[in-house]
């Protein structure tokens, strides 16, 4: 009688005995627990997983951070997932082997929030310090540097002792210094750490050192303060460089928007209110090209902008040609009517696009080579801005060559300088007008391709650039390409230097006031055309 009873007790106790043991030996159970409980309990769960000290759990934690960790609704087991067509492939959370493919309805995502993501970063940093791959060790050291978690000091010391690679070691030393600042180490050790951190300079160090000034002993705080001051002094210089870069980048956007107008308004004298819509058409062409590429030739995505450029030129240029032949040629010499007619056309184009594509923003993706940023010293240069600066200068140069070195450019200049004389020399002036206008519109179209990368593609895209474009052309001097370039860059840089002091709204107003005053003094802009063309 006694035996079976004992056995029963043993059976009852078994799970109680087995659970803690299993939890320590097998991280899989801990990972499976993530499917239970609410977001608030998850911090404890992740801490428990990290406490195993087992680097096998790293893929699961990373997947949790990236939102790729799901659990099956049927048995609550946890898997890493990967997209597989419309379904999800389930991978083992530890080995990464593919187990099965299920419909996305059969699994549920495990939610994360920012504090969990930070916790995971910290945990993964500690777990990957001994990884074989040096780049993984570097990023581990960097996450520890950012978190400054005192608990990782031991791990870090071990890793430093074992480290052979000098660059990785330097990063680890830096991380160690950051950690020491968060412990109760003696003042001397801390001051040493401050010096080590300060040597590295830069904005990210500043954050750490300023934190130290709040809660450390006076001696350490003083050392930190000194370091902060020094870093800030060098940063001021970099800041000037950064502001100039921002200005150049804004200038290049203005240049792109205005350069087509410099042809239609500057050279031909047509007040074209539909210029912004030509830019918009270029942006929508990019969108259509990307849609087709996404659906049919996804491998070409990184070239989508190059493919869109000639098409955008053709679409906007074609529209410009129709607009000139259909409307503007009847209105030469009547600026007010031209203004109203082209404004009407701009509204028609806007509403047309709205009807076809809908009123919402369209997503135009950045190709890989246009995402991210480069850091040069204290400068942060974002890739898309850099490419836009390069591109705008290229467009400027190309237009310059067309105007100065090609027969068409020669005819164009002849017609604008003296229409009657050009006509009597056998130039078909109406067609030169039409193609000049088409050229200006086409350039607006390729500007649209570039602007789709930084702005949103919506029917209102053009409106936000039209005022700026006129401002640049008028300021730079009507009819002068160099004026447009210098004008755009000056306005860009001036705007960016004003912005930190005056705020974005006031900076814009100040620039407008400045231009109004400037035009009073020099009505023909920075670089006024001289000679007969002006009087004509």
């Amino acid at each position: 009688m006694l035996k079976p009873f004992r056995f029963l007790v043993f059976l009852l106790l078994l799970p109680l005995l087995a659970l803690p043991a299993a939890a320590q030996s097998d991280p899989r159970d801990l990972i499976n627990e993530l499917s239970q409980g609410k977001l608030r309990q998850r911090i404890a769960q992740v801490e428990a997983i990290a406490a195993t000290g087992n680097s096998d759990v790293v893929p699961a934690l990373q997947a949790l951070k990236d939102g790729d960790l799901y659990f099956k609704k049927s048995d609550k087991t946890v898997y890493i997932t990967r997209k597989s067509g419309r379904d999800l492939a389930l991978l083992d959370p530890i080995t990464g082997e593919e187990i099965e493919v299920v419909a996305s309805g059969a699994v549920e995502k495990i939610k994360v929030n920012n504090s969990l993501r930070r916790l995971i970063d910290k945990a993964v940093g500690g777990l990957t310090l001994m990884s074989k791959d040096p780049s993984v060790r570097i990023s581990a050291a960097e996450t520890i540097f950012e978190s400054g978690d005192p608990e990782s000091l031991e791990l870090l010391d071990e890793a430093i002792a074992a480290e052979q690679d000098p660059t990785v070691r330097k990063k680890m030393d830096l991380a160690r210094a950051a950690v020491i600042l968060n412990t109760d180490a003696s003042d001397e050790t801390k001051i040493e750490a401050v010096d080590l951190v300060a040597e590295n300079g830069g904005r990210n160090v500043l954050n750490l050192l300023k934190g130290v000034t709040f809660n450390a002993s006076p001696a350490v705080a003083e050392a930190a303060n000194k370091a902060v001051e020094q870093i800030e002094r060098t940063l001021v210089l970099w800041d000037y460089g950064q502001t100039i870069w921002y200005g150049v980048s804004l200038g290049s956007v203005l240049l792109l928007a205005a350069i087509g107008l410099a042809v239609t308004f500057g050279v031909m004298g047509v007040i074209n209110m539909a210029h912004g819509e030509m830019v918009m058409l270029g942006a929508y062409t990019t969108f259509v090209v990307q849609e087709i590429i996404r659906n049919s030739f996804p491998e070409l995505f990184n070239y989508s902008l190059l493919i869109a450029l000639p098409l955008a030129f053709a679409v906007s240029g074609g529209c410009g040609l129709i607009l000139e032949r259909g409307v503007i040629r009847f209105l030469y010499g009547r600026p007010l009517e031209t203004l109203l007619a082209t404004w009407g056309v701009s509204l028609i184009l806007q509403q047309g696009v709205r009807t076809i594509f809908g009123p919402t923003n369209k997503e135009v993706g950045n190709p890989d080579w246009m995402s991210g940023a480069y850091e040069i010293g204290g400068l942060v240069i974002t890739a898309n801005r850099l490419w836009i600066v390069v591109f705008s200068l290229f467009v400027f140069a190309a237009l310059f060559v067309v105007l100065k070195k090609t027969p068409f450019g020669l005819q164009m200049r002849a017609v604008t300088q003296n229409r009657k004389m050009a006509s009597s020399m056998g130039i078909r002036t109406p067609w030169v007008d039409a193609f000049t206008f088409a050229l200006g519109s086409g350039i607006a179209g390729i500007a649209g391709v570039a602007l789709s990368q930084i702005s949103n593609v919506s029917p209102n895209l053009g409106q936000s650039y039209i005022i700026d474009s006129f401002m640049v052309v008028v300021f730079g001097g009507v009819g002068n390409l160099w004026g447009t370039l210098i004008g755009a860059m000056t306005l860009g840089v001036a705007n960016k230097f004003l912005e930190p002091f005056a705020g974005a709204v006031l900076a814009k107003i100040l620039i407008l006031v400045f231009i109004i005053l400037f035009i009073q003094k020099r009505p023909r802009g920075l670089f006024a055309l001289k000679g007969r063309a002006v009087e004509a």
Partner: protein
Amino acid sequence: MSILTGKAKTLGLAAIAAAMMTTVATAQEDTIKVGILHSLSGTMAISETTLKDVMLMLIEEQNEKGGLLGKKLEAVVVDPASDWPLFAEKARELIDVDQVAAVFGCWTSVSRKSVLPVFEELNSILFYPVQYEGEESQRNVFYTGAAPNQQAIPAVDYLFDVEGVERWVLAGTDYVYPRTTNKILEAYLKDKGVAEEDIMINYTPFGHSDWQTIVSDIKAFGSEGKKTAVVSTINGDANVPFYKELGNQGIEATDIPVVAFSVGEEELAGLDTAPLVGHLAAWNYFQSVDTPENAEFIETWKAFTGPDRVTNDPMEAHYIGFNMWVKAVEMAGTTDTDAVIDALVGVSVPNLTGGYSAMMPNHHITKPVLIGEIQEDGQFDVVDSTDGLVPGDAWSDFLPDSAKLISDWRKPLECGNFNVETATCGGKGS
């Protein structure tokens, strides 16, 4: 016999003719007209067109259920073209010419302010579905969007409690909603003991597209050794370049989270959201909310418009507002403005997040507040929500000259800005 048949024939014909006459008459008279006042062209078309569509869908659904008071509903759509004075004109046209029973419309605060006098003068009803700055309570207007205490304050609380934020950037577009909201938030933060130098306030013009300086300023402000967050009231089109710049300059949500009050599913549709995962938004509704009501609503919406269309918070507000109006008209048994206004207070209808929203005496409604994180698919994951429903507060408790005002449109008070200190009706906002 033949005479009889002849007589019967004429009688029958007359009867048919009479019947036809009456059907024609019912088609002309026996519909209840509902006005829809949303911009379908111009800058605001991006947001407001969707609301026109959702109203058409709700009206169609109601008609399939048999209409209202035995009559069919008829939508009257006008286009105020994002032009504020035109809003007032079109509102007048809807009420005077089309004789609509109620109007659903407006998005920006300035458009609402421009139609207020029209609704007051002609005594009609407006349902306003967008989150706004508060500091207003009108007899003819029912505010189904969030007041600041139903969106901004809970979002800031979340940043305080869960993210442990100590430094605050309040960034907004330069107009009345961000300015008032930031004034309330600034007072609230100072109440909580945040120092003056830990708050940075920044305004940008409408449609601002060059965010380089401001984003790097935010980055610098965030590297002062304290946890920093951005509270964004940036409106409409300016959001896309703002988020793109954040992504490009490498500001991640784990470093400096941005919580936005004007960014919903619609706005994210034009963005690659992969670099934005973890940034936050506070609303009273997200498309991802998992309730049977919401699933049904999304299904009808997709069938009505298209499979790629998303739903968002102001759409839910119209859903609630429309159902409240239907219920109030049924209770009052008439579409007479005064009767419906009286019947509306206290009406309670299901919302899409699994609860009931009620219309309060101050013409605001009760709503749950949800905090959502942006996901890679352009949707939000709810990471936090208030425990119960939050009643909308017309007059903020954190602005000294508003704290003493209450609003109660029931008899006998019937006042939108009653000063509890002086016990008089009037003062601010009148």
